[in-house]
């Protein structure tokens, strides 16, 4: 590259290529807006400040977990144990807080444990070559069963107020919302501008080419799972501090919700594409749908079916798009 080529003007990204790159995200945003308007017309209280904010507040942790999950799926793997992991880490956080450990440890130790556990998972996937579906299926049971065995299903209460980070407010908005936005933006930038971020896309997009290009796939996969563990840990801390008590179980099929957020957000289940912005928006969309059902007087028991339909529709559309390409 000579000096003259550096100064030559580069054509600005055309609108078309922006839409190609971010199409899915734009569509989700559109659907959210339409949904909100639609439900609001039916029941104006839907967009009331309290409800609106609470949608974000109580689901922020899902969006954050979806950031890590998106990374895993982009790399060509999957993790069905994240729900149980969040449960375990949240319980650890709460137990430490109740037992008087310094608050900062109560926040950081679960994150570190999450990273350690998932590093182990990553090791089994990358070096022992056990498919990620199987490792995480086993992990799911180990964590879920372990949690219930140890806690006996008891809820944790009497949490010290200084611990309740999710409930701190700044300008009236809970910190969980800030965490969600900031982490999503940081992660998106990192995925785009760091070498490791691009490596993850490469590994998921064409593992053979990645290997020949000199990318060391195995350590990268361990890294991906470890980072995923970190996000799971952060999500767990927020989950633990959302309410005055920590339930002994996480919402059923939490992992499915997190995967749905990633997949609907544009992360292709075949690996190689998608952004974390998409998964956060999809998490919000899903939360909005859940809330809408209440305001539309539809039984909340249909939520899971909606989830399944959303994944199916997104995956079918993805397959159709790829076959044409």
């Amino acid at each position, binding site marked *: 590259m000579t000096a003259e080529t550096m100064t030559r003007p580069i054509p600005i990204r055309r609108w078309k290529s922006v839409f190609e790159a971010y199409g899915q995200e734009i569509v989700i945003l559109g659907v959210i807006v339409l949904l909100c308007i639609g439900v609001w017309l039916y029941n104006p209280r839907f967009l009331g400040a309290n409800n609106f904010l609470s949608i974000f507040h109580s689901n922020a942790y899902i969006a954050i977990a979806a950031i890590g999950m998106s990374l895993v799926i982009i790399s060509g793997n*999957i993790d069905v144990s994240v729900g149980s992991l969040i449960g375990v880490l949240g319980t650890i956080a709460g137990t430490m807080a109740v037992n008087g450990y310094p608050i900062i440890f109560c926040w950081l130790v679960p994150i570190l444990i999450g990273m350690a556990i998932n590093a182990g998972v990553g090791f089994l996937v990358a070096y022992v070559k056990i498919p990620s*579906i*199987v490792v995480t299926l*086993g992990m799911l*049971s180990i964590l*879920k069963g372990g*949690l219930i065995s140890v806690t006996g299903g008891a809820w944790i209460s009497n949490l010290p107020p200084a611990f309740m980070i999710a409930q701190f407010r700044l300008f009236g908005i809970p910190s969980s919302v800030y965490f969600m936005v900031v982490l999503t933006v940081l992660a998106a930038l990192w995925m785009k501008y760091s070498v490791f971020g691009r490596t993850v896309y490469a590994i998921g997009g064409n593992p053979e080419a990645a290997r020949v290009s000199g990318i060391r796939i195995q350590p990268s996969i361990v890294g991906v799972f470890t980072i995923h563990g970190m996000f799971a840990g952060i999500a767990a801390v927020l989950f633990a501090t959302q309410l005055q008590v920590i339930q002994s179980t996480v919402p059923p099929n939490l992992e*499915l919700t997190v995967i749905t957020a990633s997949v609907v957000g544009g992360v292709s289940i075949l690996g190689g594409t998608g952004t974390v912005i998409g998964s956060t928006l999809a998490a919000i969309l899903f939360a909005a749908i859940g809330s809408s059902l209440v305001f539309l007087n539809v039984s909340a028991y249909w939520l899971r*079916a909606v*989830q399944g339909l959303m994944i199916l529709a997104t995956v079918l559309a993805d397959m159709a798009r790829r076959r044409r390409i």
Partner: protein
Amino acid sequence: MATMVMNRVLRHESILGVLLVAALFVLSAQSEHFWTADNLLNQGRLMAEVGLIALPMTFVIVTGGIDLSVGSIFGLSAILLGVFWQNMGMPLPVAMLAAILVGAVAGLGNGFIITRFKVPPLIATLATLALYRGLAEGISQARSVRGYPEWFFQLGQGEVLGVPTQLWLLIVCFAIAAFILGMTTFGRTTYAIGSNEVAARFSGLKVDRAKLLIYGASGLISGLAAVIFVSRVSTTRSDMGTGYELDVITAVVLGGTSIFGGRGTIIGTGLGLILMQALKNGLALSGVKGDGTIVVIGAVLIAAILVGNLLSRDGD
């Protein structure tokens, strides 16, 4: 010629057999309640549902696929049994058949998504896991159904010649499945698809049709297992079958079926199933509660594949 085949096939199974015998010894030493006819027959009763589903699951995994939705189909069939009988007033035998049929349709749905739209089985059945469970929850609205007639419980709680009814059913289905996989052209097709699907297609084998049948069977048997289960516990709830996929897949993988496809036998699955049930029983007898048990099953799953990886590196 036959001996070479037997050698290859039985190496994993013989190790499993030895393990099983060892486990039985340990367990009977540990608790005097273990080695009683009562207990053994009861264990047979308990493992029938997972055992039945493990049979078509063996076929699924041998083709290189996976079916995560079996637990959800189980739950959906269970719920619909109650709905068909109580809410829609069908005669109970008809309701039972209809519930099983729903399972078959759900399984065929999986097969359709996989063959027609070429969605990888992992994703397709993950999505239907949510969809079918969601339908079950939505339809049932978390209400449960009770009050089934007495004769209905013969299936799940009764005995024939002293052996639990569903255990007979399991044994019969086991024999049929072993026959199909080991001896018929369909079984060969299954192995071919798992070893090299492209070559199977290029050799004129009807790959898509085979897959449809296999996933359909998986759904149908899940429905059947659900009916038996309802008969055993006398009630229907929408969260039934949650987590069954773990048990089923563990039994199959423990039995020597490779998760990558192309290898595996029904005999192996049978041994894996018994070993797993023995493990659960042993844990229960030493006072470990249900939740502790699933920890062990999860660990066994991972360990089984690990060992399988190591074995296949020496052998072949």
